[in-house]
């Protein structure tokens, strides 16, 4: 372990292997930095910006920035915490997230983050956008009301030729994540379930059968998101 380096998060001395992304290096040191679009083992694409930290005065996403020797990272400041809360609020107002009626409630990372950051009422006005629900695939429902454009499904759900089932369409405020019409017709049940699991919110659902675990016994029902990261 000669490539261990030292760095600091909010003044706390930390150690990690050189080249690790900050978010993972922090977790190794028992420090939780929230993420939404990030997935272990998948090439990151700082899309949700929720893992932003301040390094040398600049905001950087900790899922895409490798840790370097002597790096000083600011993650728990009031400013950064409020930024993260702002982003959660923005995601809530720009979609239609009605937790009580959502199949993913309790397993939803956006909902869990909103609890962890104690969002009561978003400071931004709700947009209540008109968004479609695509149920044309025999296996999958893609509910655009809940999509947060994290790209997890785009990056991870592929066929054996490496073709993506899900892709982006349009850009900016008109952005959508859509299921390929042809490929959606033949997606197998295991892949469909993986897509649902990898979705941090309830935007991808498998038809017919929903969830095995009842509300109250789900992932984030007992402890806040990030509780697994402890020393």
């Amino acid at each position, binding site marked *: 372990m000669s490539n261990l380096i030292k760095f600091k998060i909010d003044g706390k001395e930390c150690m990690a292997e050189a080249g690790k992304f900050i978010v993972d290096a922090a977790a190794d040191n028992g420090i939780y930095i929230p993420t939404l679009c990030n997935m272990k083992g998948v090439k990151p694409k700082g899309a949700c*910006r929720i893992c932003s930290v301040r390094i040398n005065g600049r905001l950087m*996403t900790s899922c895409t920035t490798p840790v370097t020797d002597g790096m000083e990272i600011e993650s728990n400041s009031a400013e950064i915490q409020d930024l993260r809360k702002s*982003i959660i609020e*923005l995601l809530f107002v720009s979609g239609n997230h009605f937790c009580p009626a959502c199949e993913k409630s309790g397993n939803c990372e956006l909902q869990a983050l909103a609890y962890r950051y104690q969002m009561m009422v978003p400071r931004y006005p709700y947009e209540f956008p008109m968004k479609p629900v695509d149920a044309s695939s025999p296996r999958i429902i893609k509910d655009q009301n809940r999509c947060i454009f994290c790209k997890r499904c785009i990056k991870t759900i592929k066929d054996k030729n490496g073709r993506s089932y899900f892709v*982006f*369409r349009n*850009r900016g*405020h008109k952005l959508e994540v859509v299921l*390929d019409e042809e490929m959606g017709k033949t997606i197998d049940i295991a892949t469909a379930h993986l897509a649902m699991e990898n979705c941090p919110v309830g935007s991808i659902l498998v038809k017919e059968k929903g969830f095995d675990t009842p509300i109250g016994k789900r992932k984030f029902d007992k402890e806040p998101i990030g509780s697994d990261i402890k020393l």
Partner: protein
Amino acid sequence: MENTVKQIVEKYNTNRNRLMDMLIDIQEAEGYISRNAIATLSQLLDMSQADVEQTLSFYHFFSSKPRGKYVVYLNNSPVAYMFGREAIKEAFEKSAGIKFGEVTSDGRIGLFDTSCIGMNDQEPAAIINNMVFTRLTPYRVRELVKMMKEDKPIEELRKESFGDGKNYLPSLRSMVSSNIRRKGMILSDDYHYGTVIREKLPAMSPESVIGEIKHSSIRGRGGAGFPTGLKWEFCRRAKGEKHYVVCNADEGEPGTFKDRVILTEKPELVFEGMALAGYAIGGEEGILYIRYEYRYMKDYLEEVLHKMRKEGLLGTNISGIEGFNFDIRIQFGAGAYVCGEESALLESLEGKRGEPRDKPPFPVEKGYLGCPTIINNVETFATAVRIVQNGGEWFTQFGTDDSTGTKILSISGDCMFPGVYEVNWGFNVEDMLDMVGAYDVQAVQVGGPSGTLIGPDEFHRTLGYSDLSTGGSMIIFGKQRNLLRDVVVNFMEFFIEESCGSCSTCRNMTQVMNTKLKKILAGKGVAKDLKDLQEWGRVLNASRCGLGQTAANPIISSLKNFRPLYEALLQKDKDFDEGFDLEKSVQASCNFVGRVPVFNHH
């Protein structure tokens, strides 16, 4: 159709990285990119159809529906409005019998809005079938539409004489004017292209070329201002299979058009600069990434490249230097402002959506196809030639200590002589306004929407990287203009339209802030709204790229420098107003049930 697509795919060696070219060729051959074309394309490239669509749907000029035999793209920048866009729009709609965003039922004419097309000094302007029509008037519009209805070829629609400078050349034949008002080292005619490659390079090592560039202290002319010499040095040192030189000619910042003028009048200088950079970093391939709005220059630029190959300025063992091989290809964009951001540009070059990459790694380490790449602005490459010709030391006599050399400004708006001015850095705004004949000036937008809006009490400030930094866009607004309604909203909507949407911040915050701005403009604002705007704008700093980080600048900067304009619109007697309009909100259901509720107004 199938055969056309097949031929096009073969033309680009079934290389997925050339998807942009394929889509452009299909769009130009068929008028749109049909479902069948997408299916054939995806099959030949072994991609999912949706994957092809994800690139297609990113770019403004691609369409999966027919857009008409004659497609009109009318610029919607503020300056276009200042010079009569409303009347032009009305004339188009009335004579074509459709609204903007529609195509006539016979499929003949389509009318569409488009972001700034780089013609701010000759507005109102439109692109019709890749040809630019400038200085439009309602009369001219009626004439154009009449000719479209008569099925006249597009060349016949061009009735005016050609623009000035090289715009008359057979391969250009353009109505665009270059409007060069002031020349410096780049625009001057006292340099004959090729001199540096022929007379200087044989006696210089790549390191000494970089040495001169570093010594000159030149910083990138695109706006970000990174030291060019350092960039080239980093790239030269970076390990990779190949090294690439990319010229960024995607000038999309509303109000800037100087790259269009440089590429029209001095393209050889730009290409020579790219070759020079290739020599310096050890790269053999150059790519000019140019915005689709400038498609009318395609034949002309290809012709210039052809000429330079024949003259031995591009090709192998250039200027007798063993192993100095360099050539350039042209890559067109397809309508996306964000592709001016260097890493988004690289994604686009690889045939993908123009979403900026996470940095690090920087392009000098991992750029085009993962190889070390330098990306510089058109003007930077042109300037590099003059630096190597005369030496870095010579260059430092122009401009100021921290901003050496000259800067080409694109000046437009309320002034007597809009056009292109090459000035030394350190020029102040007051002198600039006097130079262009601008009187009764209310404000100047320095550096485009992503820059700053300044008022008279800041006109003493100087242009330079340490004071007013600019990529060259200068838009002047006279006293008669309504800054908030006509400028700030327009710029915010520009950012909303042009955001790639990848970051949660830029995708949503621009929209949220614009809604609030409109609430204030509708007379529903309260004092807290101004505080909110200021605070909310900060969230955008967490965005990945420069577009996102500066996307609230139109509001933030006008709020800072023109606060009284906002305050005058606020309700004095209220400190809370959510801006909710009950009647409007229940209108749809009222229409549906055919009843109107009685509201109790307080």
